[in-house]
């Protein structure tokens, strides 16, 4: 990575969009811009609050050709956007001759370009790591976005690692007088090691993995729970209740949560409209009181599980659930009925969770994977990094 040499002296930054793109809906742009800023909050204490008027740190504009800063845009293609480093004001300009899109391989993805430009607004220069967000070239639409270690190291070298409790960015009304409160610390407890049955597991759009249990959630690392967890679900996803039945993140970057007869849609950690809605309204053909849900890596479709049955939901089809469903879960060879959770993990494997155990599924063989130690394995050991818990269930008579 490379740093320009300046940074903001404060970490709670404000921004406003003073000129919107002509082809997108304003609230969609607001959500994408917030999501792009949130990329830089994940690993630092930076917070970003949107204002609709008055002085802000970062002003955002969608403009064409010459637009007053002496650096004219060049029409579709070529230069997509540019931004000023903090010492030069931090503003970000986007070429509105581009076909800006959201969650689609068409055109130019607004979220990815905006997250890159805000890296400049925060003091990052271009990186020569082609996998880094701060590489100068647009790489095309990436449905599952994950900040590269190079980018994390860069932003943390300017603003330090994340220390605060999760303070969702843009969670406050758009004023600069934020209530001086810190969310109640939920004491880290190791109860998850004593009782590792979970309500659901899902990946965030930025590739983080979260486990929900009751009114708390755990952010997982590659082999355990991140320091400082569990935290309250209501703090991480304002407006979302506890005791969630199922959750998944779809390729549109939105995360769907299910409980009882209702569901919620989130863009990152912000509710994405007026929720909850009835499952029957948004997911016709899918039952209530689900056990588990996931997007299967084998075909990118959404699968719902309840009792001994499963349903396949394809939003691009009419009807989204074929009449041949539900089908028996026994089709997934070796996977038990009455699941707690299902997850397509960032390593590409599909996992099923039930009670204190989990199963790794071999998508090609369409059967539970064979490995040593065999599946099912204890969740506590392998997912939550619990010490003095067995790493295998061999000899377990349940």
């Amino acid at each position, binding site marked *: 990575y490379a740093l320009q040499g300046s940074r903001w002296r404060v970490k709670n930054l404000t921004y406003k969009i003073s000129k919107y793109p002509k082809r997108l809906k304003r609230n969609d742009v607001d959500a994408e811009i917030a999501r792009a800023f949130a990329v830089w909050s994940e690993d630092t204490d930076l917070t970003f609050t949107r204002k609709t008027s008055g002085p802000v740190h970062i002003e955002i504009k969608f403009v064409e050709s010459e637009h007053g*800063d002496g650096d004219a845009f060049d029409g579709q293609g070529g230069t997509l956007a540019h*931004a*000023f*480093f903090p010492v030069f004001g931090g503003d970000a300009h986007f070429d509105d001759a581009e076909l800006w899109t959201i969650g689609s391989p068409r055109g130019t993805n607004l979220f990815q370009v905006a997250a*890159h430009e805000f890296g400049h607004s925060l003091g990052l220069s*271009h990186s020569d790591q082609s996998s880094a967000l701060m590489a100068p*070239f*647009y790489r095309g639409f990436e449905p599952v976005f994950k900040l590269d270690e190079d980018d994390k190291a860069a932003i943390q070298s300017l603003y330090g690692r994340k220390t605060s409790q999760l303070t969702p960015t843009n969670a406050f009304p758009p004023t600069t007088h934020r209530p001086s409160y810190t969310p109640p610390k939920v004491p880290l407890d190791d109860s998850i090691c004593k009782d590792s049955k979970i309500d659901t597991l899902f990946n965030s759009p930025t590739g983080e993995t979260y486990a929900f249990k009751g009114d708390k959630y755990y952010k997982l690392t590659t082999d355990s729970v991140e320091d400082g967890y569990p935290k309250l679900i209501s703090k991480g996803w304002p407006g979302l209740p506890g005791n969630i039945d199922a959750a998944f993140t779809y390729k549109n970057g939105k995360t769907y949560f299910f409980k009882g007869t209702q569901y919620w849609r989130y863009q990152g950690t912000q509710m994405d409209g007026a929720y909850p809605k009835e499952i029957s309204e948004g997911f016709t053909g899918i039952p209530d009181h689900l056990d588990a849900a996931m997007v299967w890596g084998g075909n990118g479709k959404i699968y719902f599980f309840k009792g001994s049955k499963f349903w396949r939901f394809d939003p691009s089809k009419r009807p989204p659930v074929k009449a041949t469903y539900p089908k028996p879960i026994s089709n997934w060879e070796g996977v038990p009925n009455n699941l707690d959770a299902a997850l397509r993990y960032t390593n590409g494997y599909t996992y099923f969770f039930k009670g204190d155990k989990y199963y790794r599924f071999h998508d090609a063989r369409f059967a539970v994977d064979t490995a040593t130690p065999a599946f099912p394995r204890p969740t506590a050991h392998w997912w939550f990094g619990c010490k003095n818990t067995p790493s295998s269930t061999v000899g377990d008579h349940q």
Partner: protein
Amino acid sequence: AAQSAPVSSTTKAEIYLSQFGYLPASARNPENSGLQDKRTWVNAIQEFQSFAGLNITGELDEETMKLMSLPRCGVRDRVGTGDGRSKR
């Protein structure tokens, strides 16, 4: 919308390299016939090729011009040289 022209000539490459900090800003003005000495020109191309992960030939080859035509961010790759990006 107008399409930005791909980099297909030495002149366009010179403007590109100057725009993104590999050549002095003067090269960006197509009106003046600012001469570049050979060494500066080759260095600039090598720097860009190294940054972009291309084979470092110092030649303005097809691979290099293809990469120069990709959509990208307008901020300079090499900052701190020349006028930087300043709000006047």
